[in-house]
């Protein structure tokens, strides 16, 4: 899976929870400002964890400012796991 695919996965999961079109979500959006509650954030992370088959902390997403930066981290994690 490429970094672009991961970005799409994240956008799609955020979109599903916020009931928005994934394409309307900017990958440079500040994750702390997308307006998700703690429970919504947990649901997003859990679904990403399952889709990418990667064990990430529920708070890892917030260590990165943008969807793009978070995707870069997930991409590296997957590469390391291979």
């Amino acid at each position, binding site marked *: 899976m490429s970094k672009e695919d991961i970005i799409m996965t994240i956008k799609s999961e955020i979109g599903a929870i916020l009931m928005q079109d994934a394409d309307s979500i900017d990958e440079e959006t500040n994750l*702390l400002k997308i307006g998700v509650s703690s429970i919504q*954030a*947990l*649901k997003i992370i859990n679904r990403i*964890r399952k889709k990418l088959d990667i064990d990430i902390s*529920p*708070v890892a997403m917030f260590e990165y400012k943008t969807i793009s930066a978070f995707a870069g*981290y997930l991409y590296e994690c997957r590469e390391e796991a291979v």
Partner: protein
Amino acid sequence: MISQRNIEYNNRVKQYLPGGVHYNFNLPWQETPLHFIKANDSRVWDIDGNEYLDLYARFGALIIGHGNEEYNECLKETIDRILSVSHCDIDAEAMELVARYVPSAEMIRFGLSGTEIVQNALRLARAWTGKNRFVRFEGHYHGNADNIMGGRAPRKGEPVPSDFIGDIKGTAGRAHESLESQSYLLPWNDASVLEELLIKKGDEIAAVITEPVCVNGGSVMPAPGYLKRVRELCDKYNAVLIFDEIITGFRMGLGGAQKEFGVIPDITTLGKAIAGGGVPVSALAGKKEIMQLLTDKKVIHAGTFNGYPLGTAAVKATLEILSRNNGRAIAGMNEKIELMHDVMRSEAAKAGLPLVIQGPPGCAAFHCCEDVIENTCDYTYDIMTLDIILNNNLSKNGILVSTFSRIYPNISISMEDVEWFRERVGAALRETKEAYDEMA
């Protein structure tokens, strides 16, 4: 549901209080705590008058319950009679009671917080052995000092902890190298891993610190014989064994986990419930020969409020209340909370939500999974996520539990509380099942 009034009040507080909360870990989303206005027995009321069953109990400290007349009168009498001196006429009785019930407590010093008293225990261990590092375990929590909170160690090579992305107990601003240079971080419940490390590094390990039941890691019980083997290894390699009984102390009975398992540490740290939960007290209790370092003033243990009368009076009152009638108060508390555990298991089965409740009755935890968690490393993020969601749903339905899924009863808990729980827990479990299905 958090009301608009509560949100507005919290916004007012937030102008001065960072995040609007008195404490935080690395859970970066916004949270609005409930603000309470009154409490009685096992119930608390928020600023909108909503009533909750309090199984949060101030992170487990409040074993005595809200509004315990005997306890409160003792504190009031102390306030009126002797508010603030360094040594008072309650010291001897309080110490004698701790020593009577806690097997390792040959000598005792009081402090205020668990964080502080753990650091003093480590200092004593270093002074006693002349060695520097200590061993700690994955999933355990021993306070929020730089050298002991969070981190992760590699499974291969030297188990030196370091910060990692997404660490709930990770913090910016940690003193450089404090995490890496002072401890080794090992998986718990595996004595062979500890033995392997002690064989290689025993000459630099001053102490092994463990929660005897890992309540902070999900109320995980020690494997049969594990603590005994840790004791033997500490003796063999001249390492001080420290039991962090800040939660298990008194919540597992007056003798704590050490009495329950028959394994006596060199030093015990106590806190939270030791003073009932109304005022802060922690305690450093240990073998006379090690505590002698304090008598000889080789090791410093200082603190403006150490042994303050109100705290000492609270310890005395708590132990008197808990020990009366052969410990009837704790036994009664455990009976009621176990009834609630049974109700919760049964309602979870009806809702189709996987659920286990594990650990000692006084400090058990629920987990949204099929099997009991037998090691702290098995408490996965998947399970933790569902536990947090269930915690949130319980709160919405009038039941407060502690982070993330700990169930802390107090001695005032009643059959009416069991009924309150029975009437509300099903809804919380069904709502969590919906989230569980959404995330599948």
